[in-house]
């Protein structure tokens, strides 16, 4: 049986990828960020998942405005790296798991999640920055990846409750796959940030800390948090944090926090990361 052993929450700030790709990770501005992820990388190297399920969002790269899927799942064998306007990031092509992804699609639709199936998908920093932060800079990614893109660009994003329930349905789908696979699920984006308008640059450390605490202590509070509170208290783009709730929902009732990191700033964002093991 396949099993989700742990969840990783992490920011996916594009500037982090650019710093790494341009050899700036040792500079004073960036060193604390990469140092903060060292323990997470070590955990990942020990855990060695076969498959990663990546809950992320596209930033007007794979999807333009012709079609805006709320939940889209990548079922292809390979996902090329998107050129976001300054050339694709120099990272390995992302290998998918079409058989498992197709199984997940069937299971999710029967569980009443109306997934958009994407067979050709370019992946942007929303997916590749978390890969770099947790797996470093290998020649090939050591795990296969199933991308699951959530619309958080056009309001409203799916609610925290909906995202959480999707996580539960993903857990069920994985556990009905009859092959021993170790799966780690990622929830990405956030933490507090706003990158538009006169209020740009907003950071709310208390909001972020409470969010990180409650992932293990009181997830129900987060599940019930209305979108307005993310927008108003943590910044317009902090709504990305609902994607962490899909990760949390996929872990079952009991989790243990084994790693946490928080830092301000990376460009315009508060960077946060957490690892929760399913118990």
């Amino acid at each position, binding site marked *: 049986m396949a099993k989700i052993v742990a969840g990783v929450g992490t920011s996916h700030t*594009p*500037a982090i990828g650019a710093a790494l790709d341009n050899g700036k990770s040792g500079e004073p501005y960036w060193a604390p960020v990469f140092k903060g992820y060292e323990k997470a990388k070590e955990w990942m190297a020990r855990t060695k998942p076969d498959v990663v399920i990546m809950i992320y969002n596209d*930033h*007007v*790269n794979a999807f*333009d*405005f*012709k079609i*805006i899927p709320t939940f889209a799942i990548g079922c292809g064998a390979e996902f090329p790296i998107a*050129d*976001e*306007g*300054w050339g694709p990031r120099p990272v390995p092509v992302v290998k998918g798991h079409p058989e498992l992804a197709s199984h997940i699609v069937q299971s999710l639709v029967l569980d009443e999640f109306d997934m958009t199936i994407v067979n050709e998908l370019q992946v942007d920093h929303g997916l590749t920055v978390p890969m770099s932060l947790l797996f470093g800079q290998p020649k090939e990614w050591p795990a296969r990846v199933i991308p699951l893109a959530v619309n958080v*660009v*056009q*309001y*409203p994003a799916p609610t925290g409750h909906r995202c959480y329930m999707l996580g539960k349905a993903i857990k069920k789908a994985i556990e009905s796959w009859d092959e021993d696979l170790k799966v780690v699920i990622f929830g990405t984006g956030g933490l*507090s940030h*706003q*990158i*538009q*308008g*006169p*209020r*740009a*640059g*907003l*950071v*709310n*450390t208390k*909001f972020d800390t409470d969010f990180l605490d409650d992932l293990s202590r009181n997830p129900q509070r987060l599940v019930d948090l209305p*979108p*307005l509170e993310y*927008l*108003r*208290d*943590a910044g*317009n*783009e902090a709504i990305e944090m609902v994607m962490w709730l899909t990760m949390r929902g996929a872990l079952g009732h009991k989790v243990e926090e084994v790693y946490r990191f928080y830092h*301000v*700033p990376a*460009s*315009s964002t*508060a960077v946060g990361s957490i690892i929760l093991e399913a118990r």
Partner: protein
Amino acid sequence: MAKKQEAYEDIPGTWVFDAQRARQGYHLNQFLYSLMKAENRKEFLADERKYLLKFPMTEEQREAVMQRAWNRLLELGGVSYALAKLAFTDGKSYQFMASQMVGVPEKDYVDMMLKGGRSVEGWRSKKERGEA
């Protein structure tokens, strides 16, 4: 019948990219998306007005693009991730665009972030700020 005021419209200094704004900004955003391709960036920079006429956006939106009036573009339905492609076309950074939206020099914006970012205190509500 017009739709009633949404609670998020009370957030100061913010244009939430909702369904109405997305509808209004559709052609503007498709123009911005086209700047992902190097040949389009070149064509746009060679004659901005001519390139903009290929997209059925409003004249107001075209003017705002040519003036790089970032906040006006947000108001007219542009979305930040798409607007970033215009900033990159100009060889500018995302932080430069954000500082322009805030109305301060880029250095001041970067310094604000290094000091922990903008506090939410005083930035929760237009009503509280006397803006609505």
